[in-house]
């Protein structure tokens, strides 16, 4: 559940104070991520300008379940299309064209395929948004000026500590991992 706080759309708690640490290289970042995970920190995330290999393993992320949604959508699209076409052309208004059987399956393959693909694509993209809690235009991290470089060439780890004590402990941990910069970001609210 702790992951929800970082990824979910509704996870914004009242007075968030995040610890944000910058790392100089992807190597340092992956190493630090492995240590943060090992230290048993609950609410945390890694921010990179592009997907960094090995980070999922270092963070101990479970494999994504997005594919399951896509697969269900593909099956739904397939069955929905078969039902729709059979009912419309075979039962509700049997249409005989060129003396062909009104409910011939073979002639329906192209449309069944297209509808399955369409539903899979829509579900994949909107499923991605739901799983990631996007769109979310207000996030405490956007308060940090330095964080703007995350979409350029900077690598960050952000931690949401549960108490003041954990905040200090986490800051020390991140420092010992070789963070080149550490900042405490708090969401002042009403800034926008």
């Amino acid at each position, binding site marked *: 559940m702790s992951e929800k706080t970082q990824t979910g759309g509704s996870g914004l708690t009242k007075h968030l104070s995040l610890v944000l640490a910058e790392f100089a290289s992807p190597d340092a970042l992956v190493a630090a991520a492995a240590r943060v995970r090992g230290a048993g920190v609950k609410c945390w995330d890694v921010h990179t300008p592009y997907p960094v290999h*090995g980070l999922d393993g270092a963070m101990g992320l479970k494999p994504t379940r997005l594919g399951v949604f896509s697969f269900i959508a593909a099956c739904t699209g397939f069955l929905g299309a078969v039902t729709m076409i059979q009912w419309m052309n075979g039962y509700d208004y049997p249409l005989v064209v060129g003396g062909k059987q009104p409910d011939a399956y073979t002639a329906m393959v192209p449309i069944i395929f297209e509808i399955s693909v369409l539903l899979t694509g829509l579900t994949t993209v909107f499923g991605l948004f739901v799983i990631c809690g996007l769109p979310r235009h207000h996030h405490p991290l956007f308060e940090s000026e330095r964080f703007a470089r995350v979409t350029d060439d900077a690598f960050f780890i952000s931690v949401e500590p549960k108490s003041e004590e954990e905040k200090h402990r986490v800051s020390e941990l991140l420092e010992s991992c070789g963070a080149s910069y550490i900042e405490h970001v708090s969401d002042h609210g009403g800034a926008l």
Partner: protein
Amino acid sequence: MGASYVNAEAGETELLPDVSSINQVTESVCRVTEQPAPKGWWMLFVPSLALLGLLIACIGYLVTVGTGTWGNNSPVAWAWDITNFVWWIGIGHAGTLISAVLFLFRQKWRTSINRFAEAMTIFAVMCAGIYPALHTGRPWFDYYMFPLPNQMQMWPNFKSPLMWDIFAVSTYFTISLLFWYTGLIPDLATLRDRSKNTFRRAVYGFFALGWRGSNRHWQHYERAYLILAAISTPLVLSVHSIVSFDFATSVIYGWHTTIFPPYFVAGAVFSGFALVMTLLLVTRSVFKLYDLVTLKHLELMNKFILGTAWLVGYAYAMEFFVAWYSGNEYEQFVFLNNRLNPFEAPYWWSYWAMVICNVIIPQVYWWKRMRTSIPVMFVVSIFVNIGMWFERFVIIVTSLHRDFLPSAWGVFHPTWVDICMYLGTFGLFMSAFLLFIRWIPMIAIAEVKMVLPFAQPQHAPAVVLSEELQDAHAQKTALAAG
């Protein structure tokens, strides 16, 4: 950057030799959208906008007066309209091929050109869609093609290839748009974070959906991208196959051939690559993107053009072989008398233009000097585009213009509406395309960064993990104790 990287595969380090930092990629791509447009951009944009106006005027005229303003006539009921439809939709296929098929084959060089080609796909499909929509004659009734309940209590005929086409093209457009937008999200966030004024920040920020480079998001994002690539690959093959079914399932000689689906798909990729090349060469020099789109990229694309030229050449030869081997004299007549023979066929020049542009001219790419010469590739890409337009013209018009009864034979002449509408779709395509390269990152920033040799951890992740986890475990114990 040296050859000592653990993750570096063969050739990877040479892909972008002039890129020395991650920031350089951001700068090169973003500055296009942040600086005032160069003169070259305006010189292209103003005429494109004028042609777009011409298109709108032509559509208005056509809808008001009727499809009789086109040159289509009784034997040649499909003419420039369907030729242009097939040509434009084929152009789009290179975009999906580059973004999806090359992604599945892990071709890293695609990252410099995929965004560009995907945008082309979307605009080309928009241009293509105009023609069949208007060809119905009463476009305000086009909604009859969708399975919507209506006052006649009838449903569309799902067994008709024309109906398959509706579903294929509209699905193709939707999925291409989704694929393109998904790829854009991280790059729009880059533009958002670099924005100097509130308006830019608000607009890019809105479309970036609050992307913050979270690895928990990247994990799902990469999977979504993979799934989209995996479904786009059969989709792109299906789209031009289904377009070819419009012809292949009929009983017209010259259309009724089983080779059509692969033949159309190969031709689509061929023409699409050629148009990507034409536009890429212009954009690359106008916006000085030499470090990101290198000669190596262009050479690889030229190899694709050579390969697909052989595929279409094979299809042309095969059509003749089958016409001869089948012993069907009607079929032989179409190929020998209606297409090939300069003394018998009124359209012989279109057939020979097709063969020269599509099969003979691309053969220059056997020589590396030709594959890497910018002027040569520009000229060849133009020839291929012309040749592929003629291919569709040959298939459609030469097959139709001579019916089974010589008394029903006829010839097609384009009217000014035909010509102006074709020019007008260039206006639509180019206007949309120029706005795209001006305001949206035309190179996939995050994807290019990902394939830079110094962008990934240099040590094998497994080694890092095991050591670090031990370390981390010790730390955890210490934390718990203290």
